[in-house]
């Protein structure tokens, strides 16, 4: 239950976006999804680095596919959340829930 390294906030956002997008999860829509839902801008470089790191930690797996003309004939790297990634997300969510217990979102006691 307790992952070796707890997820950072941005890592959680990336994992969640990959989950939401399902079969369409590659960097461009992942970035779009986070920006749309959180209304904050995401640097492409940071996203690549995070995706790579999550894969290295074993939370994501990736494969190349779907080389199209719009992409200059270059394949997309699709991502999928692995069970370890889902577990890590769950741990983060539980931890946050536990900490929020009895508090309102604005930080006052309920």
């Amino acid at each position, binding site marked *: 239950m307790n992952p070796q390294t707890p997820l950072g906030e941005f890592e959680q956002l990336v994992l969640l976006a990959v989950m939401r997008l399902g079969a369409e999860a*590659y*960097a*461009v829509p992942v970035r779009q999804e986070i920006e749309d839902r959180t209304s904050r801008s995401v*640097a*492409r*470089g*940071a996203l*690549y*680095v995070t995706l*790579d*790191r999550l894969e290295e930690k074993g939370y994501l797996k990736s494969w*190349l596919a779907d*080389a*199209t003309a*719009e*992409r*200059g004939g*270059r*394949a*997309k*790297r699709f991502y999928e959340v692995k069970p370890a990634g889902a577990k890590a997300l769950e741990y983060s969510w539980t931890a946050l829930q536990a900490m929020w217990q009895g508090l309102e979102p604005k930080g006052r006691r309920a």
Partner: protein
Amino acid sequence: MTADRNLPPRFALNWLEATAPRHLRESVMGDLEEEWRARVASGRVGADFFYVRHAAAIALRLGWFDLTHKQPQRDGDRRKGDGLMETLWNDARYGARMLSRTPGFAFVAILTLALGIGANTAIFSVVNALLIKPLALPDSERLVSVGGVDAKGRAQFISYPDFEDLRKQQKLFEGFTAFVPQSANLTGKAEPQRVRAGFVSDNFFSLINVAPMMGRGFNPGDDALSATPVCVLQFESWQQVFGGNPAIVGTSVVLNNMPYTVVGVLPRGFRFPFDEVDVWMPHHTWPVFKTGDNYLNRANPLVGPIGKLRPGVTLAEGQAELSTIAARLASQFPEAGEGRSMQSRLLQDSVVVNARDMILVLMGAVTFVLLIACANVANLMLARASARQTEIATRAALGAGRGRLVKQMLTEAALLWIAGGVLGLAFGYVGLQALLSSSPISLPGGVVPTLDFTVLLFTLALSAVTGVFFGAFSAFRFSRPNLTSTLKEGGRSGGDGPAKSRLGSALVVAQVALTLVMLAGSALMLRSFQKLTHVDVGFKTDNLLTLEYRLPANKYPDGAQQWEVHRKIVERVSALPGVVAASVIRAVPFGGNGSTTPFEIPGAPPFAKGDAPRVLMNFPDAHYFETMGIPLLRGRVLNEQDGPTTQPVVVINRLMAERYWPKEDPIGHSILFPDPKNPITATIVGVVGDVKHYSLGDPDRLQAYAFQAQQPYIFNSLVVRTQGDPMAMSNAVRSAVWSVDPEQPMWKIYTMDFMVNRSLGQRRFLMSLMTSYAALGLLLAAVGLYGVMAYSVSQRSREIGVRMALGAQGGDVMKLVLGRGVRLTSIGLVVGLFGSLALGSSVSSMLYGIKATDPVALAGAAGVLSLVALLASYIPARRATKANPVTVLHQG
């Protein structure tokens, strides 16, 4: 591939392709191109801009991530990794590993580089402070110092009337100010004290453009003859002498026995770049200024002006105006010196005029050290490269491209020079501190060499240049590895082509040549120094204490009073136990003071105008020659019977007697001192030995001594011959002086040995630095030669083994190996000899008693170098003869 117009900007595309880690490259580039294409519809320019911006951002982010977070060894299988950053990182790591595997090589190379770079950094800091950095004064590039020049081109001050006319007639300058540094007596405090005063015109502070921190500077009129004396304090003297009294402005202090009102204090850190000054006083209160009618006499050089050019006026234009005015004054007032002129130079240049030659010679020397060091490291790298041929060939055979190998070599070279540069900077810092603490270069006030940004930049550039040098070397070395032959030979004897061994030889020749030049330079300085220390100064320097003092002219206005004080001081000091004898003289030898005066010989044909000789005139008391141990050659010395009312007498030195009375006895002849106001005809009563007056390197000078009782003056030097340690007597001597006048300050209390020794300070410093740099060069060159010889022996081990197996004796092998070393050294010696002769003129001004072509120095340098070179080649040669042919051939 699609046409260019259907692609994002090519350079950004390539940049991203080159830098992205391989496993992400395809998807990252595809993603960005997809986004670019989506934007092309709404504008190509905007889309291209978008692409470039993000390509750069992504490349940097991924590159940085890769460099700092990844561990390629572990991930090596997954990432082949030849993105730019990753390659660089891997190369650096690999290079560091290779260097640490041969720590001896790395140590020697880095140390060699650091020594070269460090020596350069230290000396360059001084060059930077003296010659490059502007003086720490506002508009310092417009400040000039002006000097008078007589018809023979000798520098002198200019007279006050000439100075006043110059100020009135000039148009191209913002103004001129007088500046005279001289010590002053500060009294009215617990102990009388000597302060260093700067006597300046009332426009000084506005011209120099410095605003006092407290109070005011000088106002117009403060330098008028009738003005109430005012003074301005230097920040440091306000702190140290006046305890930082915040209410100092408006108070009165007694300087040279005259009350001055303090009107201001200068800001901390203000330094005028000549002599150190504690108190600034108006020019007209300078004691010499109002002595008699000094300031009205156009023939009396009194002022060393400092001027400031108007903005936009060049030094040449300013000089042209000065020349015109000076020529006009010279023709208008010829009696004050026909053909006299004025010479200006930038203040910055006049400040460093003494140290400049020396600094440039040192800079040359350290450049040589660096060159020798570079040649050494290059040689080391050559030898090492040979040792690594198998490794390189293996990598090449496994598919490493030539560019990849060159890049690897460049990275290793870069590691070396970065390490060498960092260590060199540290060496430079230490070296500079050592230079400054020994401090024999008298650095002008306010000039403080530091390792500032310019120096850092210099060191960086120096390291980069050496780095490129090695890089080019390695690249050359590995441009075409010969795979088959190297691998077949198993790297046994490293099949080096003749070109590469020629390169190594050329490096050795260059090292030998450079070293010889340095050795010759330091040998010349050693010989000069040795000659100087054996110079006969003309008197006994041991057990002699000296000091200086100046009576306040307004306390003792007339000569008889002054002489009475001097006489009493000598009397009291002579009576002290432990004192053998005491005397006074106006300007004591090696004290730095002294003046010359024109003279005529009645009855002899007059000297040619503008070419009249001058005699170094001094004023001793009766016992001076005895106290000093200056031999009397003829006649008598001055004595108590010579008084103010009797016939003026003079004692001359050997040179003067021999030059003007070569065939007769000069005793009884007379000399005329043609002072326009007070011409004196003095009778020669004696001849004494020549004395070195300013330094050991003094040429023989015409010298004459007039009796102080006949021409008293306020300034004097006291010389005391003691039984024991002269310094131990200093307090007793001071008390004796104070028993005559308790308000009389004294300064420069030194032993004569110290002053003589001090006069050698700069030479000793230059000599010891040159010698240590030359020794460093010699050591490096020896290491270089040894390296090349050892390398060549290892290369020829098979050949030598075969020869020995076929019956060659140790001696034959020795001859074979040594022969090469001797050949290389000889060529280097010849080249270096020509170099020494060519560069000799640059040091000739620093030599004494020998010429720059001195055969002893040159031969000595060549001898030492040959010996060391022979030794450096002998060791590897000997090793070659000890080799067992069986072993060597088995390896083959």
